[in-house]
């Protein structure tokens, strides 16, 4: 009975993760997660399953042209470095907009580190190699900053902060900052967004599978319960 119950709990976990993925399927730069389970063994007949962990899947999402005035995407591995006050986070969501104070912020208020757009800028663009260029009435293509991307020794150990933001942890190692645009390295795509890497069809299939497995496990609990009931009634004839 415990084995079947552990299976129900596992499917519950699976459903929660798939639901979370699906809910964010339309969020630019979102990375899906996957759960890992392991079987519990003791002697010949096992004792069910246990949830071992959850990891983000950092597979590249499709880049799509978005037309946003400051939309950027990373073609290749790496993260944007964003800050809010003293808090620093890393994200692949490049859906930024220009704030009144010149900062370039995302929807949750995190600003791109070290980028401040002067008030007289008419147009802003970002080159492949991360150089931020502005057009002012006086000059065209003046460089005001250069975006640097962060890479990690173990990106899968980053701590999710909700949505598309991640924080560095002991296990992920410290961020290593690098300039994009190297010949075989990642580059910046301006006016593009990275779609989430969630496959809606695959998520739906996972939900169906989890639901069926949950029901089947519930049957197992029922059957075990029924056997105990019968055994209890043996004596009364």
């Amino acid at each position: 009975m415990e084995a079947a119950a552990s299976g129900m709990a596992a499917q519950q976990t699976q459903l929660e993760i798939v639901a979370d993925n699906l809910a964010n399927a339309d969020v630019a730069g979102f990375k899906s997660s996957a759960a890992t389970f392991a079987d519990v063994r003791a002697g010949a007949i096992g004792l069910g399953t246990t949830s071992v962990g959850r990891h983000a899947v950092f597979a590249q999402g499709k880049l799509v042209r978005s037309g946003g005035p400051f939309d950027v995407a990373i073609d290749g591995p790496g993260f944007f470095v964003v800050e809010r006050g003293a808090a620093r986070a890393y994200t692949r969501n490049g859906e930024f907009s220009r704030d009144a104070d010149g900062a370039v912020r995302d929807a949750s208020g995190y600003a791109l580190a070290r980028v401040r757009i002067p008030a007289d800028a008419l147009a802003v663009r970002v080159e492949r190699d991360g150089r931020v260029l502005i057009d002012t009435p006086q000059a065209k293509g003046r460089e005001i900053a250069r975006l640097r991307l962060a890479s990690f020794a173990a990106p899968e150990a980053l701590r999710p902060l909700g949505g598309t933001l991640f924080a560095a942890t002991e296990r992920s190692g410290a961020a290593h900052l690098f300039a994009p645009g190297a010949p075989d390295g990642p580059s910046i795509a301006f006016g593009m967004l990275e779609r989430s890497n969630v496959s809606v069809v695959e998520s739906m299939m996972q939900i169906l599978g989890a639901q069926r497995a949950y029901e089947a496990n519930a049957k197992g609990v029922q059957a075990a319960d029924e056997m105990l009931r019968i055994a209890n009634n043996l004596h009364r004839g």
Partner: protein
Amino acid sequence: MDGIEWMGSAMRAARAQLDVATHNLANASTDGFRRSAATVALTPRGLSVGARETHEQGAVHRTGRTFDLALLGAGAFRVGEVTTRDGAFQRDKDGWIVDDRGRRLHGACGPLRVSEQATIAADGTVHDRGRILDRLPLPGGTRVLAGALETSTVNPIGETLAILTAQRAFETAEKTLSAIDATREKAANDVVRVQ
């Protein structure tokens, strides 16, 4: 062994078969899991149920992570002191290839420590910066598919069927046991009535 003991052992056997089926079902989402098949043996002391692991190949699904490895064929990965077919690995910050519990994946010459550019080829060799670093100790003919995971071989419909079968077998044994018990009750109390 008399009839009641036989039926008791049949009920225990049905219960054990249920345990095997529920263990399988619980692991319907465990990557690399291979379903166990219940084995029933007739012994002079009643029915004895065991379980043995089956060796069917699980379906493979793509994940896109570099160090997710699926085995096509026999064999298993060595992580720490144990072996597993669950190939969900990642590179930790020191370069070790670890599973979600932090256990290190072993090659033929010990735990694997690689750079970010490392790849694992179909024959199990670990390539890192243009040279061969090590090889996963796998039997001949087994191929490794990187960027994919082998899913559980459990089929929920089959296991549900096994649950129902075990449940009915349990009931049958119980009914038979009760019938034998009722017969004995009659024999003891009614056939020879002591005046």
